[in-house]
């Protein structure tokens, strides 16, 4: 066990996976000598060489498209999109190419590849550096969408993503890269993609969240439980595709109340899907409407207002109060 940050856990996992399997290659902008703008790939080029840790020209579509070409011909590329907001440049290669190659070849070809990208707000970035766009890919059959919320999860989920035989979008909450350290085993372990993590059991209410908002939700719940006689369950989804229906439904059937928290914009977001799922399969267990605490339906705002725009302690608290009022 070593105490490390999420960025260190990601770096360690990449190194271990490249050591384990020489088909794993990394490509992206500034990932070589510079080690990535957040240092996720720091030191990897020195160990594995320029052929396996490739600094690419600035061309997101080519990074993802080339990864599709590599993956279908025997390699396991790990592509980095410098910030998730830049992935619009590669939408076709993500949603129409990587996601569909297994389907349109009727299972003859597949693309075992990972696209890593930092995402999420709260760090005062310029425009299009903080957007949470996971909903776009939830709506693109053929892609898995994974987001860790801790160093331990990052290691187990990233290793599983690299070894998966389908394309995985691996979204890293940049706010959490260096937010805290925790003990991470050096040895190999995998966390199953599609399996949620019940962070804390509770009886009165379920909060469903993932990625950047997980530590925030934990804090809010801790504060509320200190002062009120409430027992709140927290589910960290870890992946939104595949989504862990069983864990969500079992929890909501127990508590009868659900609040969904994510930074992505509200309309058509992952929360809408989770809410619809609960309505279809657990409606009669509900004692209150489901509340979504999310980003507003605007483009991601400028830094001076982002703290109010993002789900924060106040807004999550209001959401909890609202579902408990029924």
């Amino acid at each position, binding site marked *: 066990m070593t105490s490390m940050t999420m960025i260190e856990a990601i770096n360690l996992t990449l190194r271990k996976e490249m050591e384990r399997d020489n088909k794993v290659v990394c490509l992206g902008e500034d990932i070589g000598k510079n080690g990535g703008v957040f240092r996720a790939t720091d030191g990897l080029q020195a160990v594995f060489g320029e052929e396996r840790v490739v600094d690419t*020209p600035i*061309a997101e579509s080519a990074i993802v498209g080339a990864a599709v*070409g590599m993956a279908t011909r025997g390699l396991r590329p790990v592509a980095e999109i410098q910030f998730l907001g830049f992935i619009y440049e590669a939408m076709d290669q993500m949603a129409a190419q990587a996601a569909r190659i297994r389907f349109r070849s009727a299972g003859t070809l*597949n693309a075992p590849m990972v696209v890593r990208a930092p995402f999420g707000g709260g760090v005062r970035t310029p425009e299009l550096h903080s957007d949470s766009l996971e909903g776009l890919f939830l709506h693109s059959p053929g892609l898995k969408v994974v987001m860790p919320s801790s160093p331990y999860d990052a290691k187990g989920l990233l290793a599983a993503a690299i070894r998966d035989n389908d394309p995985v979008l691996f979204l890293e909450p940049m706010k959490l890269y260096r937010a805290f350290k925790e003990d991470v085993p050096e040895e190999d372990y995998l966390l199953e993609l599609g399996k949620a993590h019940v962070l804390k059991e509770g009886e009165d209410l379920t909060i469903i969240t993932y990625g950047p908002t997980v530590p925030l939700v934990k804090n809010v719940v801790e504060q509320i439980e200190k002062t009120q006689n409430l027992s709140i369950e927290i589910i960290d989804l870890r992946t939104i*595709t595949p989504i862990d229906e069983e864990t969500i439904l079992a929890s909501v059937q127990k508590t009868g109340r659900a609040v969904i928290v994510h930074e992505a914009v509200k309309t058509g977001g992952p929360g809408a899907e989770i809410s619809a799922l609960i309505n279809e399969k657990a409606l009669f267990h509900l004692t209150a409407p489901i509340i979504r605490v999310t980003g507003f339906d605007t483009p991601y705002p400028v830094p001076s207002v982002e703290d109010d725009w993002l789900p924060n302690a106040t807004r999550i608290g209001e959401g909890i109060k609202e579902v408990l009022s029924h």
Partner: protein
Amino acid sequence: MWIEPNETEVNRVQVLNETGKLVRTYPQICDEELLGLYKWMVQARTFDQRALKLQRQGRIGTYAPMIGQEAAQIGSAFALKEQDWMYPSYREVGASLVHGVSMENFFLYTMGNLQGGTSAKNANVFPVQIIIGAQCLHAVGGAWASKLQHENSVSVAYIGDGGTSQGDFHEALNFAGVYKLPVVFFVQNNHWAISVPRSKQTASSTIAQKAAAYGITGIQVDGNDVLAVYSTMQEALKRAREGKPVLVEAVTYRQGPHTTADDPTKYRQNTEVESWLEKDPLKRMKAFMIDRNIWDEELDQKEFEIANEKVTKAFQLAENTPNSKTEEVFDFVFEQKTKQLQEQKSSIGTEGVLK
């Protein structure tokens, strides 16, 4: 120094002129290869014409004819080695057949059968690409994989003149140049991207010259001259195998509509089409072979009959293949079906309708 547009002179490679006469030193092509090239062109044209008829009869779906482009497609694919990979657009029946895709497979594709996408099972041919230019990047990635895994394999992207306007094309050429990848971009400039002429696609006087901007080699070839295409492609592949990517522009003409859903009389003059029929690739090669005393009208007729039979058999096989079943669509999304896919699959009855 100002770099003025279109200053570079690009000489188009030609071996046979429009009447089938040699216009330069004969490349090292033996008679057996000549016959092979021509027979493939006959097969491609026969398939193409039948597919058009079958679509009109409602027996296959939308089809993108390649008539007029046989020399470009056959000449280029004939130069590939078995271990090379092809990344085709939707108008590459001729090239795909030469590289090992069966006619039956192509019919299944046009009939909307899922099995139509399985070209890579028996040949190094990617499934047909619909998004214009997207396959250029897959060819780049494939070439990269073969380079890193030390395979002696070239990846060839097939696109049209319209495809060269896409960002993916430019990004692909750029990557190919930077990483010195074993890749060839084979552009069939057939003059029309649905209704938009080549002149409105780019201000460059040739497509071949675009290679220079990416630090790779470019060449323009008469795409209706199968000998010129074949010998040029052999050289391009040789260079690519040495890590020198090549952009080939084969100048040809789409004699037919964009697809069976298109009416080209709306946007182009018949006189233009007629002038290109004079430059027909089969006519030219046939004249050359007759001159060379290795072909005659009787053999020619027989070859078309053989091809016709082959197409008939392939279509019968395709027609006798069971249709795709609705429940199959759930099997090819992920390696293992998610719970949602399992549930949706089980909601489909055996007749393919909701239970």
